[in-house]
């Protein structure tokens, strides 16, 4: 397991476009933005219009919080104080299973894995879990590997 993240050194400040997203994580729900006109989904919710049809009539889609590991990095040198005890930690891009659209559009999100780098490979299935912080209003989603898959790929040093 990577070491703990010290959330006392991180002030997460939701805003107009993201307040509901953070409210959902507090209730252990993983949202992505969704267009009310054409159904397109996207992340992060900081973008207030639909990238496919430019509508600003937008809502949310509650995902199952499951996906496939698309890429990752292993942070060895910490830059943010909150992560000094966490190194080496893996930040992963996860392609969400339930956000694929007919034209091939996908939604990928990012997060810190709870797994060690030795367990990580591109192509593995992942699921979200929720980590409380010292701020009762803020819950941060993390991800863990939840199975195996054929044809995975691992970074060889």
């Amino acid at each position, binding site marked *: 397991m990577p070491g703990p*993240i010290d959330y006392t*050194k*991180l*002030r*997460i*400040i*939701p*805003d107009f476009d*993201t307040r509901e997203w953070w409210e959902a994580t507090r209730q252990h729900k993983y949202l992505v933005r969704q267009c009310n006109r054409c159904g397109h989904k*996207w*992340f*992060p919710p*900081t*973008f207030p219009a639909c*990238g496919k049809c430019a509508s600003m009539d937008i809502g949310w889609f509650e995902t199952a919080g499951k996906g496939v590991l*698309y*890429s*990752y*990095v*292993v*942070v*060895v*040198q*910490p*830059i*943010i*104080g*909150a*992560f*000094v005890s*966490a190194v080496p*930690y893996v*930040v992963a*891009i996860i392609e969400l299973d339930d956000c694929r659209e007919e034209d*091939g*559009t*996908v*939604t*990928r*999100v*990012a*997060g*810190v894995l709870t797994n060690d*780098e030795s367990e990580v490979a*591109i192509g593995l299935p992942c699921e979200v879990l929720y980590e409380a912080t010292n701020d009762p209003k803020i819950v*941060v989603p*993390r991800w863990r590997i939840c199975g195996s898959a054929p044809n995975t*790929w691992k*970074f*060889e*040093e």
Partner: protein
Amino acid sequence: MGALTDKYCIVGVGETPHMRPSNRTTLSMACEAVSKALADAGLKPSDVDGMTSYQAGDSTTSAAVATSLGMRLNYSLDILGGGSSTEALVAHAIGLIEAGYAKTIVCFRSMNGRSGRRMGGQVPGGPIPIANAEGDNQFNMSWGWTTPAQRFGMSAMRYLRDTGCTTDAFGEIAIAHRLHASLNPKAIHRTPITMEDHHRSRWVVKPFRLLDCCQETDVAAAIVITSREQAYDLRQPPVFIMGGYARTMTDNPQWNYSRREIHYVAGNYGWKRAFGMAGISHSDVDFISCYDAFTFTTLIQLEANGFCGRGEAGEFVKGGRLQIDHELPSNLSGGHLSEGYTHGIQMVIENVRQLRHRADDACPRWAEGIHTYDRKAGCRQLRKARICCGMAWGYENMASCLILRGIAA
């Protein structure tokens, strides 16, 4: 061919030393760089009526430099931007001069990029003690994924997986640019390195080692742009602007990670425009510069700009192809990896010097364009330096390019 191809020239270049730390203000450094670029061109401050700069909220302004140097400007603009800005401001200058807004324009970048605000976000003494995760950065900051190395590493990792390329391709680039720095008295790191050195280099964020990362420095640099008609009377052989593209973006430019292929970077959308404007093909290019914030950024731009096919860059750089006296010399001053990090402007400067045949190397008569071509004696001037393709990177989703030629081309 573009309507303005070869009508505008870069006529002056200049920079401060690369310092760690400068113990100076960005205004002081900017004045030195602008003064040196004007002197190089043989221009007085009163000959220049336009000034532009780019910065990241970390630098001085055109107004402050103009006040200091006693210039009255007909045009000024300071933009927010890092890599890929220089080339865009050159394009901008062409339009301004063509339209009559100004006659001669100086463009600068001044940054205490090491001792002041660092692009990676580090503060003096170590990691950021308390970080605010807000605005565009609230998600990335929340999962400890903020620095350019950490962000670009994600595309690099997927690239390695998709192409079978290994980090030895990164090593090839580090070695080539360091070799060139060894021939540049101005460079921060001048000791040549080997693939073993690259393998032994410590990890910063996998897949990047320390030798894959650029050298943040305190530096200012400037270039002067004017019309061909003005350029002929100036001090240096003019360098002609053939073509380019400017801050071209991919789709989904602020969330690269949902794109179909996260390493299909912005240059792919630009290079046909640049080469078409210049009226040349890749085989006409004698040398390149390639924005090396990281070794990987050079690698990916080679294929993004059509120098090799998709997924082929790892093979392409093998065997020293990017080294001086090989097929496609890259970043002849040592680049960001070894000379020092200037947000791209020094690559344009080095390209101009090479195209003038006046690389400021160890040759005693370099200023007259006389070189020995003896690499062991510290000559870094290319024998054949007629056309250069400069490729610039902002991030995966934004890129510029500037194709230049010397007077002999």
